[in-house]
Structure formats: C-alpha cells, structure tokens
C-alpha cells in the first residue's frame, strides 16, 4: 500500500509539473490526465475505491474530454506553441515560485510539527454504499445545493456559449471587420 501510494504520488507530481511547464496544450492535457489517473491510484491505495472510480470516470473522463473538445475548437498549431513558449519566460517564474516555496515551507512545517498527533492511515476499504448512505443521510442538504449549482452552471454555460445573433458586441470588438463589410457593401 505504501509503495503504491508513493509511486503513484511521484508520478502525479512529475506529470503535474509537466502540465504547468509544457508549451503544447495537447501534451499538457495528456499529462494532466495521467496525473489524475495516478491520483486515482492513490485514492485506491488509501482505501477510497469509489472515489478512485469517480476520479477516473468523471474527472479524467468527462471533464478532461471537455478540455479536449475546446482544444480542438481553438485550432492550435505550431505557431501557438511557439507563442506559448515565448510567454513562458524564466523571469516570470521567480516570484510565484518563491511565494509558493514560502507557503510550502509553512505547510510542511505545520504538518511535520503536528505529524506525531496526526496518526496513520490503515487504508481500510470504504464501500460505495457507505458513501451513498452518508450523502443522502446527513449531507442531503449539500446534495441539493450541489444540484442548484449544477443547474445554475447549465444556465450560465448556455448563456455564455451562445452566438450573438446580430453580433452587435462582436462587431464592436472587431471594429476593422465592420468597416471592411461596409466597404464590400459599397463596392457592390
């Protein structure tokens, strides 16, 4: 169990590091999926088999497929990869990395100093039945809230994703195209 946990954790860390450094979006996505699968293994090692399955099916499956669709719609090519690389200048890394390092030190210090009382994990199996009972028992209100959230998301996504019918704000954003259209109209 420990071996599985550490190996999968290492894989997750490495692939995640690649996600944030990679210039090609498709590669980054694949790394991200790998990282999630590795995390799923970690969940399994911790005894949360149901969560592991959800991680694979919902996260690595459904949500990441959404990303893949978007990547396909964005028409990415070698040019975008080159631009991506130009954006990733080493100078940018310094500040956030330093800040993250400080916070990491703080968190690790907290974890290690309090580690003795934290106790260990046996990795006992947790059945989906128990999770389900918990969800629809004491947490039922939260489930309802999650339902509201998903409904609201549906509405918002439908609103944001729609095409502007007469493209007023579109035209305003792309002033040059409007003028070209007018010229076309006049020449006709």
């Amino acid at each position, binding site marked *: 169990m420990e071996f599985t946990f550490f190996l999968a954790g290492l894989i997750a860390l490495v692939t995640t590091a690649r996600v944030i450094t990679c210039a090609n979006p498709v590669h980054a996505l694949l790394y991200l999926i790998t990282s999630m699968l590795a995390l799923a293994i970690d969940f399994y090692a911790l005894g949360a088999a149901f969560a592991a399955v959800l991680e694979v099916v919902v996260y690595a499956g459904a949500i990441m497929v959404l990303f893949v669709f978007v990547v396909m719609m964005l028409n990415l090519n070698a040019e975008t990869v080159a631009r991506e690389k130009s954006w990733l200048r080493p100078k940018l890394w310094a500040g956030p990395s330093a*800040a993250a390092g400080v*916070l990491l030190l703080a968190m690790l210090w907290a974890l290690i100093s309090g580690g003795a009382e934290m106790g260990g994990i046996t990795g006992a199996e947790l059945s989906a039945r128990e999770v389900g009972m918990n969800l629809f028992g004491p947490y039922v209100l939260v489930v309802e809230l999650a339902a509201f959230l998903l409904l609201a998301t549906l509405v918002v996504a439908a609103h944001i994703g729609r095409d502007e019918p007469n493209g007023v704000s579109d035209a305003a954003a792309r002033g040059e195209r409007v003028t070209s259209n007018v010229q076309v109209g006049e020449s006709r």
Partner: protein
Amino acid sequence: MSLLVFTLIFPLLGAITLSLFPRMSYGAARTIGTASVGLSAATFALVAVFWSWSGGFPFIQTLWQWIDAGDFQVNFGLYLDGLSLTMLGVITGVGFLIHLFAAWYMVHDLDGKPGMARFFAYMNLFIVAMLLLVLGDNLLLLYLGWEGVGLCSYLLIGYYYETPANAWAAFKAFIITRIGDVFLAIGLFLLYVVFGTLNIQAILHAAPSVMTQGSALANIAALMVLLGACGKSAQLPLQTWLADAMAGPTPVSALIHAATMVTAGVYLIARTYGLFLLAPTVHELVAVIGAVTLVIAGFAALAQTDIKRAIAYSTMSQIGYMFLALGVGAWQAAIFHLMIHAFFKSLLFLTAGSVIIACHHEQNIFKMGGLRRKLPFDYAMFIIGGAALSALPLVTAGFYSKDAIIWETLASGHGLLWAAALFGALVTSIYTFRLIFVVFHGEEKTKAHAGQGLAHHLPLIVLAVLSTFIGAMIALPLDGVLPHEMAEAGHWVELFFEVLAAIVALVGVAIAALLYLGSRKTIDTLLASERGQRTWQLFHGGLGFDGLYDRVFVRPFLATAKAHEKRDWIETVVNIVPALSRGANTGLAAAQSGRLRAYAMIMFAGAAVILALLMFG
C-alpha cells in the same frame, strides 16, 4: 379647549393649499388666505371664552413627542395662559384684519401676474410660525416658531424680488436677525445644560433654586436671551434692518414688522421673566437698551421722507418703550402696550398703504401733500392712529398704555430713563404730526383716488376703534402670569406726572404744527444751514449705524477674505483631505488592474498571511 390646536391648523392648511396651487386665481387665493386666518381668529374667540369659563388656569395641550433622544425629550406641546392668550388674540385678530386689508391691497399689485398665492401662502405660514412661537410650551418649539417667522419675514421683505434692492433688504433683515438668533440658540443650549430641560415652565419653576440671584450664569443666560430678543425686535445694537424691511408689501410691514414678529422679543423676555429677575444687571440693560433705542429711533423718524420708513422707525421706538417697561419691571404694562401698539401701528401702516395706493405707489411724503380733501377717510384714520401713537390724553389707547410705562419708569426709581422716555414721547408726537401735516395738509401735489370696498374700510375702522380709549378698556388676564407692577396706581403724584406726559405730547403736536403747518419757513431755514443739513443727513440715515457696522464688521471681513483669497493656510490644511483620498484612489485603482493573475497572486498572498497568522499567531 382642545380646539386650541385648530388656531394653528387652519393657517397651516391654508399655507399648504396655497403653495400646492401656485397658479390659482387671485380671488381663490385671497379667499383661502383670508378665510384660514379668519377661522383661526374665530377659534381663538372660542378658546378664549372656554378658557375664562374654566377659570383661566394654564392649559397644556401635548400633541405628540417631538424629539426623544436619550435623556433629551421635547414634546410638541402648546401652552396657553394669559400671556399666550393675549398674544394669540393679537396675532389672529390683527392678523385677520390685515389679511382682509391685504386682499384689497394686493389687487393693485397684480399687473397681469397670475394669482397671488405665493403672497398669501407666506402670510399664512407666518401666522402658523408666530402662533408656534407664542404657544410653544418649550424653548425649542418657541425657537422653531422664532426661525419660522424669520424665514417668512425674509420671504415677504423680498416679495418684489425682481428689484435687487429689495432682495438685499431681505438679506439684511435675515442676516441681522440671525445674529440675534445665534445668541438665542446659545442661550437655549446654556439653559438646557443648566436645567436639563427646555420646558419653559419647568425652567422658570426651577430657576430660583438652581441659579443664585445675580450669578454670572444667570446673567449670561439672560444676556443671550436679551440679544436674541434685540435681533428680532430691532433694538440696539441689532436695529438697522427694520427700516430697510419696508421693501415688502405694506400689509407685510403692518403684520410682521409692526404688530407681531418684532414684538416677539418682548414676548420672549416677558415669557422668561424669571430669568431676568435673577439677573439684575441684564435686567437693567433691557431698560437701557429700550430707552436708548426709543430716543435714537425717534430722531431717525424725524428725518424720513418715505412714509413707511418713518412709521418703521416709530415702531422701533415704541418697542423701545416696551423694552423699557420690561426692564423696569412693568411686565404687564409692556404687554399691554404691545397689544395697543399692534392696534394703532397696524392702523397706521394700513392707512399708509391705502394712501400709497391712492397716490399710485408714491411713498415720498413731500410728493403727497394736501390729501385731506381727497382722502377724508384715510385722513381720519391716520389722525386716530397718530393720536394713539403720540399718546394724546384721555381719548386714545396709546395714552393709557404708554403713560403707564413712563410712570412705572419713574416710580421704579429710574430718573434718567424717565427723562429719556418723556423726551421720546415729545419726539414721537413731533414726528407723527409732521407726517400728518406733510401728507394731508398743505397744497395738493398729486391726484389721489380713495380706496373703496369693505375689505378696505372694515379693517381700518375696527383697528381705529381699538386704537381709541375703547381698546384701552380691554383687561388682559396677566395677573397669574406676570408679576404686578411695583408702584401703586391712583396716587396724586402719578396724576401729576400723567398730566405732565400729556402736556409733553400736546407740546409735540404744537411744535410739529409750528414747523410744518403753513409756510414751513422755520424748518426750511433750519435745514438750509450747514449744521441743520448735516443733522438732517445724520437722522435720515438712522444715525449712521449702517455706516458704523459697515466699517467695523463688513469691511474688515471683506479685507481679510480678499487677503487670503489665493494663499490661505487653512485651505492648505483642508486640502490634505482630498490629497489623501486622491492618493488612496490612485493606489486602489492600480490594484484593480483587471489582470486575473495579479488578483490570484494577491489572493494567494492573503491566504498565506492568514495561514501564517493561524499557525504562529
């Protein structure tokens, strides 16, 4: 008795209606404006009857709680006793007659303008404020009325606001009375701090036990009230506004600047007499102010060419008599003279208004002349009013009220003030009959058209009747409210001095006749000389108080303001505030860059700080 509040409600309704429909026709405005005050006067009559039937005890009508903030509680309460009943009668009764006359007078001001709702709305509002002033059972309500009448006075003086001079006169009146109001406000604060209440009766009741006789505290409190009263009643040193206030329509001058508002100061001092009894020094000062004002105003009235300004100075002088009476402890005589003065002075003003209209808005007395044949009615009215003003013996009301004051002054041992009052009486009859002789005698200079109609005649006749000895027979129910006079009446000494005063008044008439009846040779040679000319100029300008105040207060203020126009260290200090907020704005605007990654970084930093605080704090 609970009808009392309706004396207020009727004019208030009138004012509201008139201001809601500013374009209503003249007839409607006149009817509403006059009827509301008429109903108020009728209510007063009922209240007076009920009040005397029920024994004449003070009656308190608390309408609602006005302010309730911690320990500070003020009721919206009306207080009716003999003093406020007297004032109530003067305000509603004389007020109604003046409204009635105004309904006739203002027709001549229409000139194609739509309606006259604004005028009557202000007049009704004035009545409301004045009633609040005299009926309020606490000083704050009194102050509300006090400011209300000041506002209406301002609005009505500036009624013909198209002429800049009138607007300036309104400013002047408002600002100078406001100086007095500030002192009154300070007095109110002081009284509240000392007594913990603003209820007038409670203060009067507690005053002897809280403040010692003649203490600095009592003197300061009384002085503040006195200065407030001086501002409103046009007494020295705040008297300069009243003559200019004649810019308003003549009924306004009669109502506000003769009968009611300017006597508010007298009412205030009488109302808080307990305070003045505790402050003998200030109490003396009241008498001195009154005496000096009455002489100065009398001199000024001698040299006026404008009929209204002359009467205005005489008002000032008569209020000086009231102050004198208050100052020598003749409280009841002061209030009695207040009422009689309201009668004959409104009569004089209204008659003057009638004459002015008859002469086509001519106010210069030297351009009138010989009107007694064309305007016999006005002549008779003016004679009655002038006789009352000059206190001609036996037949006039003024004789009884004014000579009581002069006698009380002497009886209370103020020889010098008595001499001033007697001299004032002489001057009074000189300027009064100067007016009469110049306006109504001599050769005719203009074509005059006598006023017609009930609204013109009735108020004048009623006021004229009240200005004779009939008015002096009104017994005021003041015994329970104000202390009795000190001097015994009916003494042979009193008789002697009353005869003396009567002779003085008659001598004044004789002097006026000598100077102004006939060829006026004496006065012309007197005025032709250089010294006479200078004296005349001095008197004509109200003895130079305007110039004095201009030099002492206005010009230094303007010079200081000009010197600091651009570089002013106060401004530098004040500018720190906008500089700070502008700096904060720049900083915060920079923080709001619109860049999501910067926001994320800031959030992260915040989270880190909170985490650090949780862990190490």
